[in-house]
């Protein structure tokens, strides 16, 4: 089971080498992945799973696309 993982802006430094096919443990939540990356949860403001806003408790599936963002704005 793998997901495609992206960490944006300041979170880019936490991106692992195999981000395009990041191995998942069965039952992994977003929070579990964030913890394994060594990324403090407080730094993550926005979680997208397959392009939809999601929470830290969302359970990930094979082939999911996970995007993690800090607080951002613009316009």
């Amino acid at each position: 089971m793998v997901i495609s993982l992206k960490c944006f802006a300041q979170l880019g430094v936490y991106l692992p080498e195999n981000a395009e096919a990041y191995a998942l443990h069965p039952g992994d939540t977003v929070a579990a992945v964030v913890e394994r990356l060594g990324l403090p949860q407080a730094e993550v403001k926005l979680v997208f799973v397959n392009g939809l806003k999601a929470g830290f408790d969302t359970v990930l599936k094979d082939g999911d696309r996970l995007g993690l963002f800090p607080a951002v704005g613009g316009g």
Partner: protein
Amino acid sequence: MLKILRINTRTREYTFEDLGAYAGLGGRALTSRIVSQEVPAGIHPLSAANKLVLAGGILACTNAANSGRTSVGAKSPLTGGIKESNSGGQFAHKLPKLGLLAIVLEDKPEDGADFTTLLIKKDKVEFLDAKNLVGKLNYAAHDVLKAAYGDKVVTALVGPAGEQCLMTANIQFSDPDGRPSRSAGRGGLGAVMGSKKVKAIVLDPEAKDSVEPADGEKFKTARKRWLDILMGHPVTSQGLPTYGTAILINIINEAGALPTKNFRSGRFDGASKISGETMTETIKARKGAYKHGCHTGCVIQCSQVYNDKNGEYLTTGFEYETIWGFGANLLVDDLDDIAVMDRTCDEIGMDTIEMANTMAMAMEAGLVKWGDGKGVIELLKKVGTKDPLGRILGNGTDFTAKAFGVDRVPVVKNQALPAYDPRAVKGIGVTYCTTTQGADHTAGYAVCQNILKVGGDVNTLGKAGQVEISKNLQVATAAVDSLGLCLFVAFAVLDTADAVSVIADMVSGLTGKPYTADDVVALGVNCLKDELAFNKAAGFTAEHDQLPAFFRNEPLPPHNTVWDFTAEEMQAAKIA
């Protein structure tokens, strides 16, 4: 007390007027009040009856953080409705030093009259021959004015597009570094200035008037808290300064809402190549500046200085909207090409959002291939020349679509859509449809609650709550624009409980009169009422509050949603 300077561009008479009935207003509330009271709604926007109003906000005369934005108002040649176009630059910061709240350009010279440069001094206006500037691109024109009046000269310029009165023409304002880089972009207001045969407005750099707050202690306390609010929020203290507004490319792409190939998809394969992250890396490598303010007093500093491959200055104020429009929407993934397009628009004096969509029409028509950045640059350079193709393109998205028989035309009230697909960010779609301005994201930036989780959190693909969100944001934005604050303060304001009362305290400290959070809201509400009344008189009805049909008929990948609001459903987003 600050005054309003009225200049008759035909007779060359001018008066410095007390504020009178306009007292208490500023920025957008002032421009929209003057236009709605003094300009008959049915007139031709390029006729003598139109007026061009350039105003600072209520707080422009103070040293409150981010309070120096400039509002420009008139009847828009592009939309046919009322327009307030908001810009950075030094203009609004300088106006109070001349004792001015606003400048109003009235009437127009006879056919065949020459262009003038208006030199505004304390208590005096000089009409100068603009022969030395006519036909010049904006940077070259500004250089001539710097040579004459010093590096610190503050200018408002129209480029060749404005001289030709084209509907994409903007007004460029000079920034703190002495570059004419900031645009009052939307709605073709450069054409109104051009129609009055004014090539440049020059504010005397020697002017040094100052306005003391009536209740200095109150103002100082509120001002300090205001600074803390802006510096305490992660978006206004970290995200925007580091990555600029282009930080949005990745997130809007991730959300499936980045309009790609003229609004055919919500994801662009080349997004990472044109992202804010890539831009910041590029800027650092080329020794530009990734933190930069568009006017004195900006503490957020979302702007930047972008150098070319050789480390030479190329552009500044390189915004998300521009990068999206000339990038994803045209399938161009070369950031340097997009930077040249941005600079080209600033030089010729054209709105980047309108021109980017116009280039999409050119691609639909086969004038240039999708993804051909160099081809786009060549086309842009035709605007402002004698080439009739330049005249067509310079008149914008809808005009170009008509000229070439294109039927996929993303406009509302004739103004081209910005960088969020309304099928995947429903709240911003409500704003595009219902704002008085034509398709405009800044008028009620519901991307906050739909995508960014600022000021709330709603389902971006659903309809629930969107009309209410858009309405509230439209009121808040009108107030922010009237105070002269940069709209980006909203990211912090929406998340901070006491922010609006702190703003009210700054106004109260300035004037010495009571001013509450309710007064801030009323400022926004009354401004919108003026604008809606003007548009109604100009012939706009609920029917005009709708997106083109293809948004309804074509599902947008990856979420495959369609636009499903009726115009009737959205009427509640407008102030009754």
